Every structure is written in C-alpha cells, then in structure tokens.
C-alpha cells in the first residue's frame, strides 16, 4: 500500500504511514532488537547545534536525535515525522500541520505545537544563525492553533512547504532550550528522535542510545549507535575492513572496489544528484559570451571524468542541474567531447589563439581540485590554457566563493526541483553566483513552485531546464553516487541520495 496520495493534490496533503516505512529499505527477514552499531566517519562532529550544523557526519546524528515536522523519505517525497498529517490551501499560502499526540522530548517533557512555533520563530529570527532560513524565507507567521496543530502563513504561494519543513536544520527544539543559552545547543540535545545522546567526544566517539519513548512503537531496534571518527581515510578503511566498525558512512571512490570485493561486506552505491559545477560568471568576459561557455562544455570529457575521478561511481551529466532522480527532469542530450568544435567555437568568439584562464578550486574536498586538474588537461587541445589554483578552504570561502569568475563548486542533492533551482540559479537564489539572472527562468520557477497543478508544474520545469541547456549557466560534468558500506549483518542500513536522512530507527543487527 502506498502511503502517499499521488493525486492532483498530492503535493499538498500528507499523512503518516501506519506503522512502517515505504518498502524502499533493504529488509532482510525479521528485525532483531538490540546491539550496538558502530559507524565510522572521517569528518568531525564539530557541533550538535541543529540550527546551523552542516557536517557530513553531523547529519546522521541530527537525524537520529531530532525529528522535524516532516522528513524526506527514501522516495524523495516528504513523509510524516512529528506531524502525522498536513494540508495546504488551494493557492499554497497557508499550511496546517497536525502533530502526533503524546510526543515527548528525551527529558520527558511533552512536545507540543508551542515548541514547533518556538523552533520556527528561532529559525526566522535574523539574530539567530539558522541554515534552514534560506528555504523558509517565504513563511510569514507560524502559530499554534491548539496543542497539536500548527498553522503556517506564507508571504508568497509555495507548494513545497512540506519539503522545506523536512529541512535537516529545521528540526524541532523545545521552547525551554531555545529560551535558554543557545550555546548549550552545541553540546546538549533534547530532541524527539529515535536515539538520545549519551556521550559526545568530538575528537573520537559520539554515542547515542535508544529513546524508549520514541513515537513509533518498537523502534528503534538498536540499543545504541556509536559514531567513530577517523580523520585519515586510509585508517578509516583499514579499520572497517578489519571489523572494528560495522559501517562506513562514506566510502572513498578509490577504496570502493577493494571494499566491495571483501567478504562479509556490502558496499552500496546510491545514485544521487550530487554534483561538481564549474562556475563561470556571466556578467564579465570571457564567459559573458555563450560561445565560450559552450566551447568549454564541449571540451570536457564527462565519461572520462566519471572513470578517473569517480572511479566509475557516478553518471556523466550534461549540464542539466537536475539528476534523473528528479520527477520533472527532461531528457538531456549528451554533449560529446569534441575539442575541435570547441576550438572553432572559441575562435568564433574572438579567441582564435586560445584563451588563458585561472580556475580556482578549494582544497576541501579533494574532488574539486581533481576535477579542475582533469578539466585543465581535457580542455587543453581546445585552446583553453587553464591554470589551476588550489587554495585553502577558508581563503576560498572568504575571497572566491560567490565573488570569483571561474571556480569549482560542489553541491549535494536537494530534495526538490524548486530547492535545486532556488539554491543557485534564480536571480534571488540563496547562493546565486553565476550572474545568469534570467527573468524568464525566474518566472518559470515561480510558476512551478506556486502551482498545485502537476501538468502545469511539469511544463514550467521542463521549460526552465530547456533554458539551462540553452544557456549553459554551469558546466556540470557528472552526478556523483553516494557510496557507503556496511557489514553483511547490518540490516536496513539505508542511505538517502541527499545523505541527510538515514532512517536509523529501522536498522538492526542480524547477530545472535
């Protein structure tokens, strides 16, 4: 039975699943209760502040200890979390969320509509740093109708609000926590998630234990989850292979083959919409000339990049920002690697003797520099004389990001088409950095977000994608798979392509 009514009004109404998740997990027989799951990761869990954190290893912890109103399901659609159902009005300007009854925080205090309001007020408060603000800036007011009902009033129509409320940094905190010292959020957790925090050592191990009062009966199965930090990738892999830990949050592409061929281990590739993009500012030469952008697009051998940078763990992309996982993605024609034609285009654009450029890449993660170096080599025969400048991440963030005119960016997959477009490409996108600023595109995205009609929306998004393919605002060479691995006896170890949602309440250990 499907729990989501994919009807004309499907995007507007949601409802909780009766007891289990959609059948997208890797169920392996009857779940057993108990055991401790050890997960290794290579970046620090620097903070537990759910309002601001953004670390790859912080996401799973947040997903385990906190719950939001909604959550993104494995099918990439919003699913019920603390809210058991929701409903929006016809013009998508008002949404009402109905909370489950009897919710409690880890400390035993009840979780009510008032806490939800307090959380969203904090997110919307410009004085409090909160990363979810960028997807909730259309919200006008949030009010508690009663103890279990919350009403959102929007400034502009927005059909995807239930996706925004699933944002990983929009989890529900208690009013008590928010009215106290906010710095305490960095190290203390009082959430509603399936696990509660037992100990937190950012240099080594963060240990979470079962929340006996989780709203879902019988979950989680595991007694505890331990997050083990291994800053050195080689050390992480070796320890995983030797059986010291049960799962690796992220497997390096270079190690995939070795790990997947090891006995007793299941390595997983999850196709994802994560991508590296080449930013080319279009309000200044040479990239104000479409022919230069097109020439560079032709000078990138996308399959080769997938092979040598991703070790084959990805799919070539052809500059469409939407990956095949997105519902409204249109068929995208392949762009051949054709340095000859690229050279001709460059000449046409007034660069018959080639063009000298400096491509900036931050040193974190290494994939940015690797792609940059590969592009430099591939584009050489087309007349692009590219000098790659790699710099420390802090310098990059301060000096280049959203300021430079030719640099490497790296983004994770977004839950919706709208979120993807509004992240980078619309004129008022949160991190607009291409200076493309196409009003026609803006209008199409606006139309897609505000309409509740699916066909209309599909048409708007298709037209928007055509514009992207026409103007090449970015070179997007590939989509990178999310790669993870666990021991065979780790059951229902699920990783979402967005790698923000982990459904750890379902995981269990098939051990005696």
């Amino acid at each position, binding site marked *: 039975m499907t729990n989501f009514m994919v009807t004309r009004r499907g995007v507007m109404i949601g409802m909780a699943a009766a007891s289990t998740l959609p059948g997208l997990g890797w169920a392996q027989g009857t779940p057993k209760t108990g055991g401790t799951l050890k997960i290794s990761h290579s970046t620090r869990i620097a903070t537990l502040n759910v309002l601001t954190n953004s670390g790859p290893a912080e996401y799973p912890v947040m997903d385990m200890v906190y719950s939001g109103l909604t959550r993104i399901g494995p099918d990439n659609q919003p699913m019920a979390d603390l809210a058991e159902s929701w409903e929006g009005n016809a013009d998508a300007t008002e949404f009402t969320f109905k909370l489950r009854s009897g919710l409690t925080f880890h400390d035993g205090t009840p979780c009510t509509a008032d806490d939800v309001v307090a959380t969203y007020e904090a997110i919307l408060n410009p004085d409090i740093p909160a990363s979810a603000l960028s997807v909730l800036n259309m919200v006008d007011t949030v009010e508690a109708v009663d103890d279990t009902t919350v009403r959102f009033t929007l400034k502009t129509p927005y059909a995807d609000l239930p996706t925004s409320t699933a944002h990983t940094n929009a989890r529900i905190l208690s009013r008590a926590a928010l009215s106290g010292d906010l710095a305490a959020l960095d190290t203390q957790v009082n959430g509603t998630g399936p696990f509660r925090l037992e100990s937190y050592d950012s240099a080594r191990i963060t240990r979470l234990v079962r929340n006996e009062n989780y709203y879902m009966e019988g979950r989680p199965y595991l007694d505890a989850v331990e997050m083990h930090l291994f800053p050195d990738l080689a050390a992480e892999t070796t320890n995983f292979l030797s059986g010291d830990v049960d799962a690796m949050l992220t497997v*390096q592409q270079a190690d995939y083959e070795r790990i997947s061929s090891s006995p007793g281990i299941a390595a997983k590739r999850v196709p994802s919409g994560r991508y590296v993009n080449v930013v080319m500012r279009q309000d200044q030469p040479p990239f104000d000339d479409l022919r230069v952008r097109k020439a560079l697009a032709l000078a990138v051998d996308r399959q080769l990049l997938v092979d040598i940078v991703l070790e084959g763990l990805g799919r070539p992309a052809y500059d469409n920002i939407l990956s095949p996982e997105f519902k409204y993605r249109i068929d995208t024609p392949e762009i051949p690697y054709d340095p000859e034609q690229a050279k001709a285009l460059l000449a046409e654009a007034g660069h018959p003797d080639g063009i000298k450029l400096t491509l900036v890449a931050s040193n974190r993660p290494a994939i940015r520099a690797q792609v940059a170096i*590969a592009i430099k080599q591939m584009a050489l025969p087309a007349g692009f004389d590219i000098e790659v400048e790699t710099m*420390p991440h802090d310098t990059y963030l301060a000096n280049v990001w959203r300021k430079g005119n030719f640099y490497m960016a790296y983004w994770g997959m977004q839950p919706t088409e709208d979120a993807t477009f509004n992240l980078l490409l619309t004129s008022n996108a949160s991190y607009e950095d291409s200076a493309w600023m196409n009003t026609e595109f803006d209008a199409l995205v606006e139309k897609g977000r505000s309409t509740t009609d699916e066909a209309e929306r599909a048409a708007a998004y298709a037209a928007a994608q055509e514009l992207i393919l026409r103007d090449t605002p970015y070179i997007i060479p590939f989509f990178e798979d999310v790669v993870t691995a666990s021991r065979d006896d780790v059951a229902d170890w699920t990783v979402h392509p967005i790698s923000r949602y982990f459904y750890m309440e379902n995981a269990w250990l098939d051990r005696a």
Partner: protein
Amino acid sequence: MPEILRSPTGIAGAVLLSLVAVAVLAGSFVAPYDPQAFHPATRLTGPSAAHWLGTDQFGRDLLSRLLNGAPSTIGFGLGATLLGVGAGTVIGVIAGTAGGWVDSVIMRVLDGLLAVPELLFTLLIVTILGGGMGQAMLAVALAFTPGMARIARSSVLSIRTREYVLAAVARGEPGCYIVLREVLPNALGPIIVEATIRVSFAIMIGATLGFLGLGAQPPSTEWGLMVAEGRQFMFRNPWVVAVPGVAIALAALGFNLFGDALRDSLDPRRSVRG
C-alpha cells in the same frame, strides 16, 4: 674542496647531490612524458617499460612528475634555507659584534622563539599567511632564523676573541672592516655547514607542508604533495607514495651526508695539514 671527497660520507653525499642537481637542472628536459598528461588506459600501474616508475591515479607518469617536481621541491629547501640563513646570519652577526644590551635583547628574544617547536612555528606562520608555496617558504625561513642567528652569533663570538680580530680592534679599524674582512670570512664555516644540513630539514618541512595541504597545491608536482595525493591509492599501488617519498628521503640524505662531511673537513681536529 676535494678533502670532502676523501670520506665515504662525503662521496655518498656528493653522488646523491649530483643526482639531485641533474634532476633539478635537466629534469624537465629529460622527462619522458608531460608530467600533467593523463594516460587513462594505464592508471595506477607499477614500473613498466613505458613508465619506469609507474603511474598515478590519472595515469600520469611518476618519473616525469618526479623530475618535474625536483626544482620546486629542492628549490624550496634551498630558497627557504638561504632566506633563513641570510636573515639569521645578519641578526647573529649584529648580536655577536654589538654585544652589550643589543646582544642581550636579541638573545632573549631568540631564546623565546626557539621555545616554540619548529614545525609548530612553521605551521602557525603558514596558516596565518594563508598557505601556498611562497608563504610556506617564508614560514620555514622565519622558523630557521632564530636557530641560525644563534649559530652565527656563537661563531662570530668565537672569532671575535681571536687575536687577529683583537689586533684589528686595537689598531682602531672601522667596525665594518672588522666585521666584513676579519670576522665574517672566518665565521662562515660553521654557518655554511649548518646551512647545508638545514637544507635537508627545509626539504622535509616543505614536503610535510605540502602533505598537509599547506604548502604546494595541486596540480603542482612538489614531492610532498605527490605523496599526499597518492595516499588514497597507496594500497592499490604503493609506488604512488613510495616514489616521491623515497625521493624526498634521498634528497634530504644527500644534504645530510654532504653537510656532515663538510663539517668534518672543516673540523680542525680532523684536518690534515702538511
């Protein structure tokens, strides 16, 4: 100085250094491939007829990269040492010849600076300077300065009380004559020896900074960076880390051996004088 070549350490050092010198001066011309060229068909291979030292993750020829990276790796060591030795010598000579409170103040400050471990000092400087090859070189030079100043000062002090210097002072020679003609030429020996040995430290620190991502940046062929980039693949092809790693060690070894032999040949206890 043929005397150096009488000791086995001197010979070994000289041989290694000539190899390094050839790599630095002619490396780019004799490299069989473009050090940046991809050979996707032969990625992560061991030594073969086509690629004598194997290839890295992009199929780039390790030998060519090694040769191409020699000038920057060795140049870094030489440059940083030269800067540090230059600055240190100037400070040390000032302290040693001025004496009195100038000397006291300089020495106290140097003592304090030497209390910060060298690599920590370098790391701090290079991070606050923002990383990169030039900054790293400056950082190593700065970290070397206090130590070199000390050596220069003690060398100057030991010369300053020699009787020929006293004779010049008694004659009423101008200060600059005494420093430049009487003291410095005779104080240079220990400074040169120390500098030679320090080149090996500088090469190692430079490579370490490259390894930590604070020195040379991709796509540079600096050897420390090569090790760092190869680490992900070291279990699939140990050559990607072994080749640049061993190259660093050999270069450092060359300077170490040569410096020691130089020290021995300058040591009056061992010098053979007809």
